[in-house]
């Protein structure tokens, strides 16, 4: 059944309008979710993550980056379990999109592999540090990180094509160059990378932040690939997703071995975001991307403030 674009616009606007009061309602956080039957919370979580899935796709970000600050700040679950779920959420989204991106050439396995290795090691370090630090410290650091992400998204919202440049020594040795077909322009786009060493260092740091907070790292991977290493934006977006599927795997195992993955939180969240993302892809056609991105930045800003305030004990 095909619905007209205007209907999708209304759905998108409704989803975004619902998300804000939903968060405000949840802000009156009830300790441990008292007063509601156990099954109500997974149901609320499913609904919330469904909306998040729509907003995430329309805003051009991964669901994980919205999930951890919002669910960690406004739901009765401890941050340890929220971070584990956020990590699985980002992992599942990346796994699901990986095959299509690889087959279409919009992700490069060869480009992702060295960066993901650095990120995997960083992810393990981050997961171990995150599970060892006091919750308040992690919550405050999460707030600062989310505010920084909102700032980064604001600053880089106009970025586009990779700059013209020569390949560096490492990139030549690794064969990090190629070309892909851009369906939008119906042209073959040639690419090569530079500043490979800095790129590897960045991915270690990004992996660490991802493992520490359970965030997907597309918000940082894409600028690192596009602005730092000079990869064209479309290839950067696709390769970032593939890298997340590799990097988050290592941290997911750490969380799983420590017993921090609660099925009652993980499964409704994954299903909600995945279904929401499918709707979001259709909504994307009917809504102005820049407007959606600005809404995401505003939501992240609010969630970041909330997380920081909780961490500081307000």
């Amino acid at each position: 059944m095909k619905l007209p674009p205007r209907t999708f616009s209304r759905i998108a606007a409704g989803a975004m309008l619902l998300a804000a009061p939903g968060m405000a309602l949840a802000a009156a956080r009830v300790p441990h979710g008292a007063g509601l039957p156990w099954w109500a919370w997974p149901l609320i979580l499913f609904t919330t993550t469904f909306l998040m899935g729509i907003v995430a796709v329309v805003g051009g970000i991964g669901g994980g980056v919205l999930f951890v600050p919002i669910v960690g700040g406004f739901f009765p679950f401890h941050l340890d379990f929220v971070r584990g779920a956020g990590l699985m959420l980002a992992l599942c989204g990346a796994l699901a999109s990986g095959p299509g991106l690889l087959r279409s050439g919009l992700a490069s396995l060869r480009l992702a592999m060295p960066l993901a290795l650095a990120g995997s090691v960083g992810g393990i370090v981050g997961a171990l540090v995150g599970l060892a630090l006091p919750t308040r410290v992690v919550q405050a650091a999460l707030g600062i990180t989310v505010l920084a992400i909102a700032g980064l998204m604001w600053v880089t919202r106009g970025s586009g094509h990779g700059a013209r440049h020569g390949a560096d020594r490492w990139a030549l040795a690794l064969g990090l160059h190629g070309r892909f077909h851009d369906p939008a322009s119906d042209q073959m786009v040639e690419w090569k990378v530079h500043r490979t060493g800095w790129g590897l260092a960045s991915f270690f740091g990004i992996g660490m932040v991802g493992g520490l907070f359970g965030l997907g790292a597309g918000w940082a991977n894409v600028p690192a690939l596009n602005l730092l290493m000079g990869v064209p934006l479309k290839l950067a977006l696709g390769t970032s997703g593939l890298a997340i599927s590799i990097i988050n795997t290592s941290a997911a195992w750490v969380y799983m071995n420590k017993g921090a993955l609660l099925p009652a939180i993980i499964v409704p969240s994954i299903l909600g975001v995945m279904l929401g993302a499918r709707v979001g892809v259709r909504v994307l056609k009917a809504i102005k991307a820049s407007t959606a991105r600005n809404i995401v930045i505003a939501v992240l800003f609010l969630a970041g403030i909330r997380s920081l305030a909780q961490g500081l004990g307000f």
Partner: protein
Amino acid sequence: MAHFDESLQAEQRVYADWLAWGTRLGFGALVVTYLVYLSGLLAPAVAPQRLPELWGLSLTEYLAETRAPTGWSWLLNLGQGDMLNLVGVAVLAAITLACYLRVLPIFVRARERVFVAICVAEVVVLVAAAAGVF
């Protein structure tokens, strides 16, 4: 400078195929085991009715309160509804490892030494993480 090496295309295609099948398997397992958990067919290690008083605890407090298994010991408790859910999670977390093991011989055959090394290093990192070394 165009770079269209047949072996590279093959390795990317193979990785995509394995990723697609593994993801389907993982999601399928996740949904089916969650339905089993919700249906109550298998008694869980932690009763769902207790969750609202437990999920607000830190991981350390939660483990002390529930004595839930850590590491791979969940495999010994697959008869419990909540532990069975971890099968789907484990499959999803194992897909990347399987994909790397599948493309490794392609790099070896192509004598791509740097990528063989990267592949082996990633496999070591993932196996160590999965084994609970960290």
